[in-house]
């Protein structure tokens, strides 16, 4: 086989393997969008609850809808049509718009009203009570409300259905106009609870699309009507889309720049395509490794992984820049390999730290980057040289490169510079006034301020529960939770009275405990007794005989019913709420009371003390921040280990303390400088900054390693400079663009890496080179 044929055969084989892996992973790998798998593992019970609640809690699954752009009447009518249509949609567990819903209780559950209602707790259902109620009904029938009452009267003369509906309506009723909720600004309001978790952008996206299409289908007649959606789920979709949109847009620009750069640097289209093969192999290997180990990959892992894998672009660039006349590509790569291997090994060892973090998302990231770097590195070593065309331009001959080299060589390298920089950095770090760590993860993917304000406005208008606070009622079983909830209910009422909170909803508001239901059941009169009471009470009243037979039947039925369990109740429309308020975890049951308008969280402390913490206020924001803080501690531990491993790897590779120092010192100083500049600029550090610092350090390691290398001649030194410049410019192309992003998360990564690349490059030249020239001297 001719060399040319062999080259082509190998290339085609390589591409076929890549395609096969791509097809395999495309079939087996599932991409998940649930943000929680990227969050730190929960430690305390409150953190565990937080992880559950953050996605599935009653607050986070709520979407707030506002209709505007038309007259009040039209909007009210639209609100009714729209909610009726949404109630038919399987995406939603609850749709409320303020309409009085007589179908709140299923037909089958109607007799249970005598077990659910507190009406007869203080005064029993007897002739006197009945006479009083019936007398009021005669008056009601003469009042404007008569037409509403008539249909239910024979079955429910004491109006228990209405009393329950009143009890179950939101504690802070929004304004009602034309029978539906309105905001003070004149928008018709709806509350929609999705089945999907709040922080699953994909599932929320489906629900939101369903809302929008339902709206479009029902807005006939109000062509100008507009729909506004708000709520945690909507924001997660919005933030996801804008992050993806912006990073794709920036990605396209930097890809074009990158292609132009490589074409300028190597003057060959073939080389451009071939240089992409190792990194493509690395990326595919990373994805395939995750497909094998985890089967499901998080979207963020993919994004972070590709970011971190950016280091691997150095490998083919080093090979391409270091080719020289009279040497095959294979020979060139052999002479580079010890350094490349040191770089690859140290990067991989550093990424092991992510694996130790214990967070699924970060473990995936470690598997992805380590396998990606290894495959990219080894394919650069063993495959790429064998498919490169024999003809090339020596990078050392690039015009102007010699001048740059001489200028860099001539730069003064004062010995006091590194310590001076260190002192300046220390001063900058010390003088920074903002908090060192950013614990509020949400601030990195912020929701635009005007949307946040609108959310606050709608939430207040709707009296929707706080997303931040939950009142936890803990017991051994669901019954225990309901009993405790009943017990503390007067205490909560007192807190509302005091003004500590605007309103609160406990689970027992919807469903009394079995014990309470049985007590009420036992107090109900039997059929003959009730009939006698009714006859007694009807004396002198105009009701016709036999009118209240359905009432007698229902009470009799209620006497023999099994008390209503949460599971049974959950099947009715109103029961969906109790389902969201009762959760089982670790053999315990938790009742989740919602809080509306928290004024004084400390007022709940006494309640927690008296119940030994069985009733307590959960501050989701506090819990999530403590979660992030404890998580960061673990990452920092992992990083400390990673640094030690990296230092050891470099020492082992060099077996020379001086040389190792010349590589590690600029890297360390540059990292400190990046930190100092970020802090002096008022940035609080987050997980994303840490990832970006790691990538920058990985790139810096390459620069230092190659500058520190003993070069046989000036041409080889120019090749090193050429390779490093191509790497630096390509890294800046990608990350400096990200630094201009409007999204803090992209900006955090972009700015940190750009700063890092700049500092690492400059310090490598000044410190690593300086070491060499002194050694040579």
């Amino acid at each position, binding site marked *: 086989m001719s060399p040319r044929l062999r080259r082509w055969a190998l290339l085609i084989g390589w591409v076929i393997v890549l395609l096969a892996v791509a097809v395999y992973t495309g079939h087996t790998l599932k991409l998940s969008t649930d943000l929680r798998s990227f969050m730190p593992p929960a430690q305390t019970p409150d953190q565990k609850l937080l992880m559950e609640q953050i996605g599935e809690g009653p607050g986070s699954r709520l979407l707030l809808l506002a209709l505007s752009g038309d007259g009040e009447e039209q909007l*009210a009518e639209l609100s009714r049509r729209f909610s009726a249509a949404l109630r038919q949609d399987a995406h939603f567990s609850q749709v409320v718009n303020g309409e*009085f819903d007589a179908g709140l209780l299923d037909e089958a559950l109607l007799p249970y009203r005598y077990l659910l209602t507190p009406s007869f707790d203080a005064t029993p259902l007897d002739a006197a009570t009945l006479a009083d109620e019936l*007398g*009021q009904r*005669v*008056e009601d*029938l*003469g*009042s*404007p*409300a*008569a*037409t*509403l009452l*008539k249909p239910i*009267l*024979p079955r429910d003369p004491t109006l228990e259905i209405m009393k329950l509906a009143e009890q179950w309506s939101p504690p802070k009723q929004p304004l*009602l*106009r*034309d*029978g539906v909720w309105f905001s003070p600004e004149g928008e018709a309001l709806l509350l929609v609870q999705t089945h999907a978790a709040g922080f699953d952008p994909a599932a929320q996206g489906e629900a939101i699309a369903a809302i929008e299409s339902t709206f479009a289908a029902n807005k006939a007649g109000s062509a100008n009507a507009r729909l506004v959606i708000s709520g945690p789920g909507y924001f997660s979709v919005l933030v996801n889309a804008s992050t993806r949109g912006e990073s794709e847009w920036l990605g396209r620009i930097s890809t074009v720049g990158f292609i132009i750069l490589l074409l300028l640097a190597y003057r060959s289209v073939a080389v451009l395509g071939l240089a992409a093969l190792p990194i493509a192999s690395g990326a595919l290997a990373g994805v395939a490794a995750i497909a094998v180990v985890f089967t499901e990959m998080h979207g963020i892992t993919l994004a972070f992984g590709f970011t971190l894998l950016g280091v691997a672009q150095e490998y083919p660039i080093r090979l391409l820049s270091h080719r020289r006349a009279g040497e095959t590509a294979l020979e060139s790569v052999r002479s580079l390999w010890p350094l490349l291997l040191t770089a690859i090994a140290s990067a991989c060892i550093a990424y092991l730290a992510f694996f130790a973090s214990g967070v699924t998302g970060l473990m995936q990231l470690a598997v992805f980057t380590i396998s990606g770097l290894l495959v990219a590195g080894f394919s650069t070593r063993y495959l790429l040289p064998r498919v490169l065309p024999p003809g090339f331009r020596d990078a050392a001959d690039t015009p102007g490169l010699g001048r740059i080299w001489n200028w860099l060589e001539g730069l003064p390298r004062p010995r006091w510079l590194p310590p001076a920089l260190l002192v300046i950095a220390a001063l900058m770090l010390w003088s920074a006034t903002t908090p060192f760590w950013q614990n509020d993860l949400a601030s990195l993917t912020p929701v635009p301020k005007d949307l946040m304000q609108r959310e606050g406005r709608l939430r207040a208008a709707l009296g929707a529960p706080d997303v931040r606070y939950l009142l936890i009622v803990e017991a051994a079983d669901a019954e225990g939770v309901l009993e405790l909830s009943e017990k503390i209910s007067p205490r909560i009422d007192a807190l509302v009275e005091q003004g500590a909170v605007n309103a609160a909803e406990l689970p027992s508001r919807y469903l009394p405990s079995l014990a309470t239901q049985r007590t009420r059941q036992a107090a109900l009169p039997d059929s003959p007794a009730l009939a006698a009471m009714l006859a007694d009470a009807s004396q002198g009243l*105009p*009701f*016709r*005989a036999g*009118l209240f037979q359905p009432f007698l039947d229902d009470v009799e039925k209620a006497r023999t019913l099994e008390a209503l369990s949460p599971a049974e109740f959950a099947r009715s429309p109103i029961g969906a709420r109790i389902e969201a308020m009762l959760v089982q975890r670790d053999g315990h049951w938790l009742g989740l009371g919602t809080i509306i308008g928290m004024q004084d969280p400390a007022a709940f402390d006494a309640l927690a003390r008296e119940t030994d913490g069985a009733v307590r206020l959960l501050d989701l924001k506090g819990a999530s921040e403590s979660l992030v803080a404890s998580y960061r501690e673990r990452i920092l531990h992992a990083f400390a280990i990673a640094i030690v491993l990296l230092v050891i790897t470099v020492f082992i590779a060099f077996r020379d303390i001086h040389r190792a120092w010349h590589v590690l010192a600029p890297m360390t100083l540059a990292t400190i400088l990046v930190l100092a500049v970020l802090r002096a600029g008022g940035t609080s550090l987050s997980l994303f900054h840490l990832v970006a610092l790691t990538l920058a350090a990985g790139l810096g390691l390459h620069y230092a390693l190659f500058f520190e290398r003993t070069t046989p001649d000036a041409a080889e030194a120019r090749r090193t400079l050429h390779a490093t410049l191509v790497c630096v410019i390509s890294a800046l192309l990608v990350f400096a663009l990200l630094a201009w992003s409007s999204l803090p998360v992209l900006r955090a990564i972009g700015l940190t890496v750009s700063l890092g690349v700049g500092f690492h490059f400059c310090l490598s030249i000044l410190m690593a080179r300086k070491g060499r020239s002194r050694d040579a001297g």
Partner: protein
Amino acid sequence: MLLILSCLANAAEVDPLALVNGLQRELPARTAYTEVRFSQMYDRAVIARGELEYLGPGKLGKRVDSPYVETTTIADGEVTIQRGSREPRRISLDRIPELEGFLRGFSALLGGDVAALQRDFEVQGSGSAEHWQLRLSPTDKRLKTRIEALQVDGAGSKARCFSIIDADADVSILMVEELATLTLPKPLTQKNVELTCRRGNSGP
């Protein structure tokens, strides 16, 4: 019902809008009333007496003096029901949209606001200037499920009876002005009360 229909069929057409205009009166307008309610729920007619008050657009008052004491006031989109010495109950009219439509019509009728009336009701008139009858059928679908029609009998510029015919055929007839103090017809049947409204007296 049949009687009304036959009356309508035989009646010379009167201009209903002119009638409504003629009803306009000085504010506040007050009248005593006697209400007779016929319901499928009752085994007999239920009688209530009191005073009706019209205070201007959207403002109505109805006081029951016997057999119980109750004051219903409708003003500013809110219904306030005060019974005996109990705490007054307030219901926002928005919560009962049907009722709101009905009361809008009632208030428009008393205030002589033809435009408002025509917005919510189909207005028919029959009879003569001395014995006229207005029938207001709601156009709103939701209101229609509750109320079949609002009927007014009168003579000249004075209304004698307001009848509210529910969708389930229950009827409540309010006799006002001089009819309020009239001796009720015997036997007290719906047909007899309707005849009284028509004739302006309870004589046989």
